[in-house]
């Protein structure tokens, strides 16, 4: 049984065989000495790939890589059956393993992946989570209603949901003017971009928490959603008392349609993991969790992008654009955009899309 000597197909990289093949006493050592050149060439390519990506590798080396890898793999299989040279076996095992990581490793870099992600991968992942999104949406609406009802029945709940800081004017009993003032615009954009950056870090940290907590069967994620939305419900109740609910909704909608959508998605992503661990279906629990985790991670990268947009919206248009109508227009446009992007935009998956659709 003789493995093909691949290096003879390519002029470059042909390594001269050691001159002393004839002096090798053992048939298995002659086998090794005949193929050593290919192994060393493979090792060299793999080392350069590990060192600096694909750019520094010559084209014919890249073309030769899969063939060299299979040669080394078949050499290993043959050597296991014919050779007792422990050093060679250990070398081949390590070499084949290293080459395996390169041949079957992450083929796309982060930039390629990001492009695929924006052009369809993201919306596919979101659609795969539709059931979890429905559950999370239901929980969020319920949370807002619960918040409203709690505060309506007992004002003490308001302070429990909003631990009021000094100078906080949004408290029960506040006058209409005071409340309107909190919705007013700023005079200039000074300081707003710093505010935006802070908001972004803070909000995406909350979202990542909501996602990661899904690990505990999704229950903490849902609790986080209920808590956040109960705060919103209490705020709505407060402004409703002064007949300002439309103004508040307009003020919130500018960034809220993006931010709440993002929170909804991160809660759904967390729930997706928790649900797949609690009800793994036909798969082993670990595999179900891993598949759900990868799907949810895609959604989470998108949520971080949404949080950047929400923070920019919150800092600039919300503080600078006045009037309920124009605020509603901005918020509504964003909501329409997200819905269209997630549910209407359905490009064909590209050839090597690795993301499995949820069954």
């Amino acid at each position, binding site marked *: 049984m003789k493995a093909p000597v691949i290096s003879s197909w390519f002029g470059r990289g042909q390594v001269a065989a050691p001159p002393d093949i004839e002096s090798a006493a053992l048939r298995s050592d002659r086998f090794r000495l005949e193929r050593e050149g290919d192994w060393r060439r493979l090792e060299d390519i793999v080392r350069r790939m590990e060192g600096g990506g694909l750019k520094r590798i010559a084209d014919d080396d890249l073309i030769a890589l899969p063939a060299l890898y299979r040669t080394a793999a078949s050499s290993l*299989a043959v050597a296991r059956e014919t050779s007792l040279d422990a*050093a060679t076996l250990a070398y081949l095992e*390590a070499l084949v393993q290293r080459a*395996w990581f390169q041949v079957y490793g992450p083929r796309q870099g982060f930039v390629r992946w990001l492009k695929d992600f924006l052009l369809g991968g993201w919306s596919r992942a979101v659609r795969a989570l539709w059931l979890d999104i429905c559950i999370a949406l239901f929980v969020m609406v319920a949370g807002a209603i619960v918040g409203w009802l709690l505060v309506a029945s007992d004002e003490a709940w308001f302070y429990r949901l909003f631990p009021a800081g000094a100078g906080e004017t949004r408290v029960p009993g506040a006058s209409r003017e005071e409340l309107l003032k909190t919705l007013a615009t700023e005079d200039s954009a000074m300081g707003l971009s*710093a505010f935006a950056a802070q908001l*972004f870090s803070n909000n995406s940290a909350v979202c990542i928490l909501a996602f*990661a907590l899904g690990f505990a069967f999704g229950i903490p994620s849902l609790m986080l959603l209920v808590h956040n939305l109960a705060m919103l419900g209490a705020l709505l109740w407060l402004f409703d008392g002064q007949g300002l609910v439309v103004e508040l909704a307009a003020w919130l909608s500018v960034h809220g349609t993006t931010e709440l959508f993002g929170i909804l998605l991160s809660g759904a992503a967390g729930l997706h993991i928790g649900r797949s661990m609690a009800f793994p279906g036909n798969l082993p629990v670990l595999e179900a969790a*891993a598949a759900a985790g*990868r799907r949810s991670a895609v959604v989470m990268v998108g949520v971080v992008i949404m949080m950047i947009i929400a923070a920019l919206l919150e800092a600039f248009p919300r503080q600078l654009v006045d009037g309920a109508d124009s605020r509603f227009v901005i918020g509504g446009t964003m909501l329409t955009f997200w819905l269209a992007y997630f549910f209407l935009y359905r490009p064909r998956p590209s050839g090597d899309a690795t993301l499995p659709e949820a069954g």
Partner: protein
Amino acid sequence: MSPTAAIPARSSALARDNRRTRTLITPEGLALPITIASRGSRAAALVIDVMIVVFSLVIFYLVLLWVAGGLLDSTKISADGPPGGATEFLLVIFSLIGFATWYGYFLVQELGPRGATLGKRMVGIRIAARGSARLTPEAVIARNLLRDIEIFYPLVTLFTLLALSNAGEDIGPLGWVMTAWFVLFLLFPFFNRDRLRAGDIVAGTWVVERTRTALADALSTKGAAAAEGASELTGVRYSFGDAELAVYGEKELQTLERMLRDAQPEALKAVHDTICRKIGWQPGAGDERAFLEAFYAQLRARLEADMRFGKRKADKYS
């Protein structure tokens, strides 16, 4: 020390290693052994990585402060006035870069061809997909997002609570809850066979040791092991009969190979004595290496010839 005497000590080390050895089936159907990284090396890698990120952020922050100080001086604006456009810009840069560094550091490096961060590379481990699947960007993202709730979120909360309670505030049972949370995730890798942390479970990854073995010289081309080889010292050609070669198996052969490669003269002498006694030769002195090389080559030739007929002799007892 004889090759056979060396075996018990080694086999206990082997047994310890075996608990971390898994088999990976490549798409070609080849079984490759891989070794799960130990918990200690993973912890060390994490500490190194966190230190790199934190120190570079601190240095970056100090440089920014220095730049901002220059800005304030040149414009004659007092530091506690409203932030000027330039300082505000620096503030934005800092918070965005902090976020990007924290997640980018792990993501970009683990997605690279090494599959490891700087810390992991230093301790010689890398991440891989469980089973024989391809490692995907989604998996790397998932495992890194989860690290926050496993370690940093509870730690930061605990430190905040500690500071609060030192300031005299009543923190209630929250401290215990966070401690339990932290300990739960910290102990996670101790309660499953593959030493997975929660992030690994969700991402479908595991952390394995990075192997890097150099190809050793072929033994049969040198000295008395070569085809027409004879001792360089005495010119004797050692040759062994079937009965003399039948006493040892593959395990002893590979121990002998290791000793020939490591080449400690005293150890070789002891092995030489043991083998001579075992096969009934009178042990001489001075030409141990040539004797062992010849014995190795002929024992291996015999065992490999048997292998071709499907006959394997694992060790001297079989």
